[in-house]
């Protein structure tokens, strides 16, 4: 399956001892942004994946340890966040100014 699972929700069933999970929320103007497009770019800025945020503005990726960039695109604008991920849960917030 290449379609993204429902974004957000519990981490039940996800093995955080092996998976490198990058998750967080997209915010704009003091509120989470639902339906924003969020893409994960690798250290060379190459597209790796894209999801659409949940009604609570949440996104989640299953990556690998290393440097990543999360970029959000929504009708209200764009935002991005760089992070260094390790095996386990890596949380971040992307703010659209």
């Amino acid at each position, binding site marked *: 399956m*290449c379609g993204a699972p*429902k974004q957000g929700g519990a981490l039940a069933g996800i093995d955080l001892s092996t*998976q490198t999970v990058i998750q967080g929320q997209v915010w704009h103007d003091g509120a989470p942004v639902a339906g924003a497009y969020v893409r994960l770019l690798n250290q060379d800025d*190459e597209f790796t994946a894209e999801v659409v945020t949940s009604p609570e503005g949440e996104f989640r990726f*299953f*990556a690998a340890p290393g440097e990543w960039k999360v970029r959000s*695109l929504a009708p209200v604008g764009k935002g991005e966040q760089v992070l260094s991920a390790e095996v386990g849960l890596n949380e971040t917030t992307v703010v659209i100014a």
Partner: protein
Amino acid sequence: MSRNDVLVTAEWAQENLGTPGLVFVEVDEDTSAYDGGHLEGAVKLDWKKDLQDPVRRDFVDKAGFEKLLSERGIANDDTVILYGGNNNWFAAYAYWYFKLYGHENVKLIDGGRKKWELDGRPLSKDPVERPATQYSAKEPDLSIRAFRDEVVASIGSKNIIDVRSPDEFTGKILAPAHLPQEQAQRGGHVPTAQNIPWSKAANEDGTFKSDDELAKLYAEQGYDDTKATIAYCRIGERSSHTWFVLRELLGKSDVKNYDGSWVEYGSLVGVPIEK
């Protein structure tokens, strides 16, 4: 074949909703997207439930395709306008599939659902009912579908285009990063394959890059116009996107989609793999 024969803009689509003879079809794996709002009058196809055989790993046969399109109210002489999420991956897959079964007039909405949403165009939750038809499909056109033996035999002789992300190509990750990384098969790529990710052919809003940009992209990556081409990804939908670019937008000849893709190849016993 040119861009105007196979692509419509979101603007054109909005102006032509409800036009007799046009059927708008949303193709997603996650049909909750459609249920939460779709183009007015559009019917839905579920990439997995509708287009895949429920038992074998293959897509539905000719009779199954005829039954599906008849139920959805799509006639042989309708122009089918496809769109979907994931930057049109599944819509491009469906396009390839409609072509495989010989549907004459099929087009994609450039940018798909993403472009439509970013433009702030209207979505409808009204249920869509179309009267059933008697759809008649042609025998599958296998000149656009590659199977595993052909892929193995093409190592070093045809253009083999791996359209996955660089990290999947090198085997660092085994699936697109929005999915759990839990496949059991080997990571890596088909020897001699070139990694030209599908994403390089698309703009950030999901629309395809211009013909000039696309021609330059493949030329720079060493695409050999004198050779036949096989595109693959993980399960065959991103490679449909590239198949669409190469054959339908750029007019390259003899381009096949290997829909078995890495999930099949990376699980075959004894085939060569590079990392």
